[in-house]
């Protein structure tokens, strides 16, 4: 121990002796060697081409005129392709898993004389919830992820960060927050981990707290479905797809605006400080390896996220079935909860069913819509022919879903506010755990958890209030 203390003492004394230029000199001598070695090893064949593809493309995607419109266009295109492309496979999966296999399971359970509550718990709870998640989630993810990955592999994301920097700077946030935010569009937990590229602890915290405003993949199916059913339905069928896509883009943009506003708020209150400096490398564009990217993003991203959804959906399905079928007096627990939450729901333009669904679905955002539907069957269970028994997710297409929603007294306001609330509520349990791991602080974890949900209540309340005044 003496030896090391000695070394340290001597070193710090020497450190004071040498001038500030020491580090410069060290770096310079390294770079001088690097330059010499590189010069000896590298040669060019012929002239360097005058036309530089990278620079020409960069001039367009970062141009004052085209930069932002191109960005919006690209993201709208991605969402539009997702909305349009997901419909058909979704219906097919629903047909297979829900319309076909589910009744088969029931008749099989009848044949072997399975007790009603066992078959209810397993077939109407566990199986249906899982089947729903697969048919609602898989198609949009299988389309969105590869497209997003292609953009990412091509090298477009740093250009977006380049374009957006000024706005982030004005919000007092780090320039690289736009990168972690974009990862958040894939998955908030991944986005929160990605904030490690930010050196300054203050700005990293801001990036972590606001990452939840990036609409994650678990929430798009909700957005896309509701937008398709309610907002797309406002316009002629020809425009339905693009309008639905635009409304989802609108929500995503609103999320970005909020994340900037909250960043600004934080950097002017509890996380005061100057925006720190940073450098952003714009890497060369690389032609993505198309099929490999599709394959990788399908296998790695889509299936992993889907698997997580299923893992959470299966027990949630059982919970829903249980609360729908355990009765106190004549009324089920779920009905108690729904009725209890209905007034609060009404106040913020939603309803009790949606709020109960958000409580049941804390583990994963992915299962909101399936949960809502299961609970709806309960509250409008006299809606003959759809599903059978309390807490059974009905077997249905989009049309049936729409009928169901309108019977549950859903209006355009409910839809809009559900889209808003889906953007603005607590992060899923994985994201919360990740925040805790990354910050190591209960305080910041709590702030990141409760801030969005409080904002969700406030914003939904205001929308509902103004809507009802005007309408």
């Amino acid at each position, binding site marked *: 121990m003496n030896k090391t203390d000695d070394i340290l003492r001597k070193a710090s004394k020497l450190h004071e002796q040498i001038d500030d230029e020491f580090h410069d000199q060290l770096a310079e001598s390294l770079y001088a060697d690097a330059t010499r070695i590189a010069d000896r090893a590298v040669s060019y064949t012929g002239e360097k081409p005058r036309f530089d593809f990278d620079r020409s493309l*960069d001039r367009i995607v970062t141009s004052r005129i085209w930069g932002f419109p191109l960005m919006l266009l690209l993201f709208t295109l991605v969402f539009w392709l997702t909305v349009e492309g997901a419909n058909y496979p979704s219906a097919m999966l629903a047909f297979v898993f829900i319309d076909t296999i589910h009744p088969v399971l029931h008749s099989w359970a009848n044949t072997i004389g399975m007790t009603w509550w066992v078959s209810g718990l397993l077939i109407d709870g566990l199986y249906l919830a899982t089947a729903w998640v697969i048919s609602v989630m898989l198609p949009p993810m299988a389309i969105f992820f590869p497209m997003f990955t292609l953009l990412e592999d091509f090298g477009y994301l740093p250009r977006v960060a380049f374009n957006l*920097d000024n706005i982030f700077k004005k919000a007092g946030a780090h320039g690289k927050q736009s990168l972690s935010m974009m990862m958040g569009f894939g998955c908030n937990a991944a986005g929160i981990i990605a904030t490690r590229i930010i050196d300054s602890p203050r700005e990293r915290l801001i990036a972590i707290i606001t990452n939840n405003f990036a609409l994650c993949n678990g929430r798009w199916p909700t957005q896309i479905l509701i937008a398709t059913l309610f907002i797309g339905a406002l316009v002629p069928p020809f425009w339905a797809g693009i309008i639905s896509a635009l409304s989802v883009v609108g929500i995503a943009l609103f999320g970005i605006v909020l994340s900037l506003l909250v960043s600004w708020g934080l950097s002017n209150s509890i996380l005061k400080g100057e925006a720190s400096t940073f450098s952003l*490398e714009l890497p060369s564009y690389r032609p993505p390896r198309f099929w490999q990217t599709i394959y990788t993003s399908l296998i790695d991203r889509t299936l992993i996220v889907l698997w997580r959804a299923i893992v959470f959906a299966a027990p949630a399905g059982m919970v829903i079935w249980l609360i729908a079928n355990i009765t106190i007096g004549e009324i089920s627990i779920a009905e108690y909860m729904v009725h209890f939450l209905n007034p609060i729901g009404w106040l913020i333009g939603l309803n009790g069913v949606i709020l109960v669904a958000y409580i049941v679905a804390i583990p994963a955002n992915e299962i909101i819509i399936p949960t809502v539907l299961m609970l709806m069957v309960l509250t409008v269970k006299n809606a003959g022919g759809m599903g059978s028994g309390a807490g059974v997710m009905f077997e249905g297409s989009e049309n049936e879903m729409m009928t169901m929603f309108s019977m549950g007294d859903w209006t355009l306001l409910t839809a809009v506010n559900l889209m808003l609330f889906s953007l603005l509520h607590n992060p899923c349990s994985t994201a919360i755990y990740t925040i805790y791991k990354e910050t190591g602080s209960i305080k910041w974890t709590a702030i990141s958890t409760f801030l969005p949900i409080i904002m969700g209540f406030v914003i939904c309340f205001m929308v509902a209030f103004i809507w009802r005044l005007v309408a």
Partner: protein
Amino acid sequence: MSEQKVITLQHLKIGQHARVVSISQKCHGLERRRFIDLGILPGTIIVAEMRSPSGDLTAYLIRGSVIAFRSEQTRFINISIL
């Protein structure tokens, strides 16, 4: 290289080439190190490549890589235009 007027990097116009003269002594600590680690040293050639739509970030070609800085950073880098 003839005797050139020394200006700061933030004044380099898009498309112009310059040679780094020094990093200002006002820039120290982490910020200075980051410049140096990125290869910004006396003698390094820098080309201004493009500016962000809001004009706040500028991307420079430095030793083969395109790297963007904000203007409040580039004012610390003294250059002479080539």
